[in-house]
């Protein structure tokens, strides 16, 4: 069974490739489930983290995939998923935001053929508030995407533990 390090080392420019796979995975989730396109800004937008969703990966690929943005962004995401106005979104915002993170993580791992059945996902966790530090047991360079959702900053990060 290959380790995460071997998986990463198994392809040329693995980090760039996986960044691309992560971006495609995220775009598909937003287009299919929310009906909107993520855009890539000319310069990286601010890293807003009023709300953070996290999904753990275990097995051949160990790490944490997180998505963070403003509460306003997360509310609009939930409204698009549910087909209601942002004003109608209540506590379901947390569930919706966690599910988005879950689907991005699942879609990402499904696109890495070598992972096969060897990578499991945790249930999502959602936290609010900016005043926190995350110390995952990651020892590889994090993949990070800075994108725009409805012209608002969205950061997707994959921290990998070898």
């Amino acid at each position, binding site marked *: 069974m290959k380790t995460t390090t071997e998986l990463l080392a198994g392809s040329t420019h693995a980090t760039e490739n996986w960044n691309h796979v992560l971006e495609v995975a995220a775009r*598909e989730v937003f287009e299919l489930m929310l009906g909107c396109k993520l855009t890539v800004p000319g310069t990286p937008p601010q890293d807003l983290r009023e709300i953070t969703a996290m999904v753990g990966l275990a097995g051949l690929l160990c790490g944490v995939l997180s998505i963070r943005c403003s509460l306003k962004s997360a509310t609009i995401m*939930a409204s698009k998923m*549910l087909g209601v106005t942002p004003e109608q979104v209540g506590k379901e915002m947390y*569930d919706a935001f966690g599910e988005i993170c879950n689907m991005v*993580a*699942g879609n990402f791992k499904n696109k890495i053929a070598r992972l*096969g059945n060897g990578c499991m996902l945790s249930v999502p966790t959602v936290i609010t508030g900016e005043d926190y530090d995350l110390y995952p047991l990651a020892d590889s360079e994090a993949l990070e995407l800075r994108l725009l959702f409805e012209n608002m900053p969205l950061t997707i990060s994959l921290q990998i533990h070898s």
Partner: protein
Amino acid sequence: MNSIRALIVDDSSVMRKIVERSLRQAGVEISAVLEAGNGAEALAVLAENKVDLILCDINMPVMDGLELVKQLAAVENAKGVPVVMITTEGSESHVVQALSAGARGYIRKPFTAEQVKEHVLPLLGVNA
């Protein structure tokens, strides 16, 4: 197509709503939607209710979707009822396990209403 009673099993209430909406968008006439947050809750629902279709996630607490599908064989109200998995788990192994256990369809998240239509309508005797 007669209107159906559907059981939607997912630990996310948001996802249960989206699955229901996708069913309606696929043209399925629904007379009742029953919901469960995991496999054990689904078995409890099926102990007292008959349904025509079961849509089921895999990764859930308490009892996951694969275990639920295995146990459905012994549930009177689930006999002959088509089960379609809707899950983020996309590996071939999961697909094989689900279909071997008795699931009749497999949809990977993220999904579209069109995919629900393609997978579900034939199971209800309607051409997609």
